[in-house]
C-alpha cells in the first residue's frame, strides 16, 4: 500500500454560485469522503481549508520569520483542501481523484 496526498484545487468561483448548487457540490463531496472513510482509505489529516483570503504566510527573511497576509502565491487557483489516502498504487489514487467533484493534484507521500 502507498499513501498519496490529494490537493483539492479551486478558484473559489463555486462559492458565488446559487446556494442550492453549492449545497449539491458539498453533498457530493460528503458522499465521496464518507464512502472512502467507510472503506478505511481516507487517513487522518484531511480537511477543507477556509478561503484564500484567510491565508497567512510565514517567511524566513534574513534569518527571521516574518508574517505576511495572503497565500504563498497569488494565482487564480489555489489549494482549497487536502486529503490523505492509502491505496495500492497511483492508478487507484487517480481513480479516486477522478471521482471527486473538482480538480485535484495527486502527490505521493514520502516514507520516512
Amino acid at each position, binding site marked *: 500500500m502507498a499513501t498519496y496526498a490529494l*490537493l483539492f484545487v479551486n478558484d473559489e468561483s463555486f462559492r458565488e454560485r446559487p446556494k442550492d448548487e453549492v449545497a449539491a457540490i458539498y453533498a457530493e463531496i460528503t458522499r465521496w469522503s464518507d464512502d472512502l472513510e467507510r472503506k478505511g482509505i481516507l487517513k487522518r*489529516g484531511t480537511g*477543507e*481549508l477556509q478561503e484564500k483570503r484567510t491565508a*497567512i*504566510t*510565514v517567511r524566513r527573511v534574513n534569518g527571521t520569520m516574518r508574517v505576511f497576509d495572503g497565500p*504563498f502565491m497569488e494565482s487564480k*487557483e489555489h489549494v482549497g483542501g487536502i486529503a490523505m489516502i492509502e491505496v495500492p498504487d497511483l492508478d487507484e489514487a487517480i481513480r479516486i481523484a477522478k471521482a471527486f467533484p473538482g480538480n485535484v493534484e495527486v*502527490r505521493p507521500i514520502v516514507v520516512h
Partner: protein
Amino acid sequence: MAQYVLLFLEEQGWKDQPKEVKAPAYAAIGTWWEDLSQKGILKGGGELQPMQTATTVRRVNGTMRVTEGPFIESKEHVGGFGMIEVPDLDAAIAIAKSWPGGNVEVRPIVVH
C-alpha cells in the same frame, strides 16, 4: 480550540541538494514533528514527493482528464503539510515560525 493547516513550501530543486545539506534540515524537522505530535498538537500530515511526481486530474467539459505535473508551475510549491489544533491564529503562527524547514502558509480549517 481551532484547527489549522500548515502548508510547508518547498522551492524547486531542494530535493536535489547534497545529502550533507538535507540531513541536518530533516533532523531538525524530525524533532519538531515528534515534539508536536507528542504534545497532541500535530494531528496529521506528511511530506510530499517532489513536484515532478505530481499528477493533476481536471474536469474538462464534463470529463476528468489526467495530466502530468502540479496544478500550477511555480518556483515554490506545497512540499508537505501538517494539521494542528491550537487555541487561535496567534498560536498557529507561533508554531509556523518554529518550523525549521522554510516558508509556511497557515490556513484555518472549515468546521462542518
